[in-house]
């Protein structure tokens, strides 16, 4: 090596360490795609969908493996991720969250030691939810007007009042329904089985589960679709779910039902938690302190994934027809999904305490 090339090389090394724009190169490395959940469940499915595609699209084609870090309702994994830094990981650790990670954060759960605004979002994936009824109950609906259900007794299998199930639970309440939740079931699949066995007489499923398992029930006449939670348009307003354009949204049902208001603190709270739970349900993050060029490299790789010719085809069955957002879209979704007005939060905390004895100090 001549002195000249040595100086040039040293110069490059200095600029590199000063943190100027670099190219992310992950060749020969393994990227840990950590999710704070177990191998079963929706987040595992979602992460396993993206992992191989990311591997193809990231610079250097690293191996992308999904790592499971379940515990304490997903707060354990999120607390762990909060302690990760760019310097230690250099692009080899990404983190996938779900509504279950956002809800404790929004509700001020004492177990939460993580801060979403420290992290760098690179992808936001939405989903939707569909509520359905047994035919005998669906008959009591008068078009969109659900006031006919007010006198009935309902029983519903739920995973817990502070989970994603908070959204439907609040919706039932706003419609004036008398619903007794049976808490402690293991997954939404168990709730659907309770419905099929006639133990429960109202239920909802997220989109992909609805398509696979409730559509046959609708076809043979043992279930009637009722309403979706809706999707968001560019202005942040609730519109019909693109996967289920023929099913009305809760907003429409609420407007048509006496006593249910699409304004006021209950509505604001419902909408805030609905957004956190469904359209902004799942996100991928880089750890705190990640430089912009690394975020850009990941964003570009994800854009490449979304631009695949076969993306619509392979994602439809597994993710539903929902926006998969990167860049600015992802940042907007993150804001919508992790910032709730203080009044909305207070309303939910009081309601949970009053109706279900759940205290969130």
């Amino acid at each position: 090596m001549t002195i000249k090339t040595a100086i040039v090389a040293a110069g490059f090394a200095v600029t590199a360490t000063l943190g100027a724009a670099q190219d992310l190169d992950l060749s020969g490395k393994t990227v840990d795609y950590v999710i704070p959940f177990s191998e079963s469940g929706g987040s595992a499915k979602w992460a396993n969908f993206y992992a191989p595609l990311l591997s193809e699209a990231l610079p250097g084609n690293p191996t992308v493996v999904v790592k499971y870090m379940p515990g304490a309702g997903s707060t354990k994994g999120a607390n762990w991720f909060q302690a990760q830094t760019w310097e230690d990981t250099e692009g080899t650790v990404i983190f996938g969250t779900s509504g279950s990670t956002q809800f404790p954060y929004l509700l001020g759960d004492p177990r939460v030691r993580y801060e979403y605004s420290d992290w760098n979002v690179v992808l936001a994936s939405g989903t939707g939810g569909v509520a359905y009824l047994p035919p005998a109950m669906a008959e009591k609906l008068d078009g969109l007007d659900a006031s006919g259900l007010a006198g009935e007794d309902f029983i519903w299998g739920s995973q817990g009042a502070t989970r994603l199930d908070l959204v439907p639970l609040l919706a039932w309440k706003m419609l004036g329904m008398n619903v007794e939740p049976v808490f402690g079931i293991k997954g939404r699949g168990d709730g659907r089985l309770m419905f099929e066995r006639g133990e429960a007489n109202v239920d909802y499923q997220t989109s992909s589960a609805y398509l696979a398992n409730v559509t046959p029930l609708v076809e043979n006449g043992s279930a009637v679709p009722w309403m979706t939670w809706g999707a968001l348009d560019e202005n942040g307003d609730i519109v019909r779910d693109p996967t289920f354009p023929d099913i009305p949204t809760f907003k429409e049902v609420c407007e048509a039902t006496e006593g249910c208001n699409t304004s006021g603190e209950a509505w604001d709270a419902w909408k805030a938690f609905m957004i956190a739970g469904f359209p902004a349900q799942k996100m991928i993050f880089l750890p705190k302190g990640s430089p912009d060029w690394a975020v850009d490299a990941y964003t570009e790789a994800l854009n490449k994934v979304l631009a695949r010719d076969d993306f619509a085809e392979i994602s439809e069955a597994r993710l539903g027809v929902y926006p998969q957002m990167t860049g600015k879209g992802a940042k907007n979704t993150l804001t919508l999904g992790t910032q709730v007005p203080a009044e909305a939060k207070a309303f939910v905390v009081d309601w949970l305490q009053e109706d279900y004895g759940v205290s969130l100090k």
Partner: protein
Amino acid sequence: MDLLATALPALGEAFALILQPQQLLYLTFGVLLGLSVGVFPGLGGIAGLSLVLPFIFGMDPVSGLALMVGLVAVVPTSDTFASVLMGIPGSSASQATVLDGFPLARKGEAARALAAAFISSLFGGLLGATILTFFILIARPLVLAFALPEMLAVTLLGLAMVAILAGRIALKGVAAACLGLLVGTIGEAGHGGSLRMVPESWMFAATGSTTFESYQYLADGIKLVIVGLGIFAIPEIISLLRQNQSIARGAQLGSGWAQGLRDWWANVWLSVRCSSIGVIVGVIPGLGGSVVDWIAYGHTVQTAKDRSQFGSGDIRGVIGPESSNNAKEGGGLVPTLIFGIPGSGSMAVFIGGLALLGYEAGPQLVQNNLDITYTVVWSLALANVLGAGLCIGLSGPIARLTTIRFTLLAPFLFMMIAFAAFQSRQSLGDLVALFAIGLLGIFLRRFDWSRPAFLIGFVLSTQAENFSANANQIAGFKFKQGWAEGLGYVATPIVIVIALLTVVSVYFGIRQSKQIRSEGDVATGSKRAPLIFLLALLAYVGTAWINAYSINMISDKIFPLAVASVGLLALVALLVRMMMAGEGDEIFADREASGEDAEAPHSLWGTLAWFGALLLLTSLLGFVLALALFMVAFFRVRAGLNWVWSLGLTAAGIAFICFLAGMLNRDFPPGLLQSYVNLPWPLT
């Protein structure tokens, strides 16, 4: 006829699909992988499936299915190796196999026990696949007939097996089961999320503090892997290590694998009955498979004429549970495929894999893709034949492991157990919990408190609580609508039949349990040690009672309060009996009084200290460094090997565990050192 008209063509199509060289190759690969993963206790199907999941995407569906099914199907076959040879329950499916399988290995009849187990597994697997073939088309209404009251009834039937495994003193069995149930309630309650046996203040502790870490660990409860390893494996390993022998006493091998096949044939009807139990329990979603081997074991004992040998090496005690656990996989595919509801963790991952291949589990799969569904069935059958065949062939040579001096095996077993336990939650807490439960297991064994009863209680705790609370809530709702509605929900024919079975099981179980030594004979000794242990149990159950009493939410307190009350009554009654009885009464059973343990050349505490040292070193230096130090020291000092051998064996062990962890993409427990210094994998 209609059924046959739909099933047969699809069955033929599926047969043609699977019998292609490429598909068969993938199936074989899956089987080999499943066998290798299944051999290691605590890893099981989930680890294996996670290993292949990244490669499933983009594969041709039939190959992918063959790979995954081949893997899942043989895990309950190969986990028998650990159960029989080492007394380590390989997975939740073969806990009951330990009871008679391990004593057979100690008699030098490991090959016989293994062969009988594998042929039973094969038979169960094939029966499961056959039933699955036709049942899957008509199962829907039958599966839906199992609502919460029915599931609660089956859970209670499982708990009733405690009666027969309670040991010489029924009350001790009851107390052990209550203790298991209570340990199962530790952590956040399923209903309202109240914390049980975890101080609420821990939740507010600072990030990274030991208290907060303990909270995060305990909030989710203690996992079955840890309890299984702690209750069965650690006491046996420590006991064997103290005696400084080989597993087969005198290093003599008795009858071989051919005898095992003959044993199975002589008990073929038992195998049929237990396989059927396996299929039925597997079919019910939400019940989980961990209870099926106990129900099968209980059935085996109850229907046997001569019960004197159970627990000290009766081959029927191997045939029963092993017939049921592979059959369960076939049964478990029914709810998995037709409802999209996984019956176990590995089934949940399997559904994820199906999605990667472009199929969504659910009613549509069976209706529209019957050929794909049957591909699963055929793969299941073929994998069972292949897996069991390989295992029977291997059982002779592998049985020779039991003739090796145990001191040379023990470090490798400690390594495997610690690694397996750590996979449960990847926290240092796993190792602490393992040590604590192991200690409990050692004392339960020493003082002859039924370990199976404890384990059954633990396994069924969550579902007993959830099913009873939920069924109660819904029943209340139905009774509000009218008596006929309510009774129609609670008192269905299925519930009544299972309840009758439960009553009969308990009645005969109590009558028979006096003859059954599920863990062999135990000598009696002085009063002091058994009394102290009883008082310690009393203190724990008392604390649990107070803790449950202080919970506000009725839904979260009622179950632990009720169980702790029963446990307290049983323990107090035992205490009274201890005070009345004289020395030498059977209530003062103590393995340290006389027998193998008492005459062992090494002391209990000295031996346990070795294992404790491994865990302590791990918390300081991380697992791999700690293991290296531990193994070298153990081989040098305890086993008395020279430096060359000590270093060589240690290097082999470390290389092996790193290979395994690398393949499965798992980490090792880090220690204090790692929080100060960044070390490269595998030292992280």
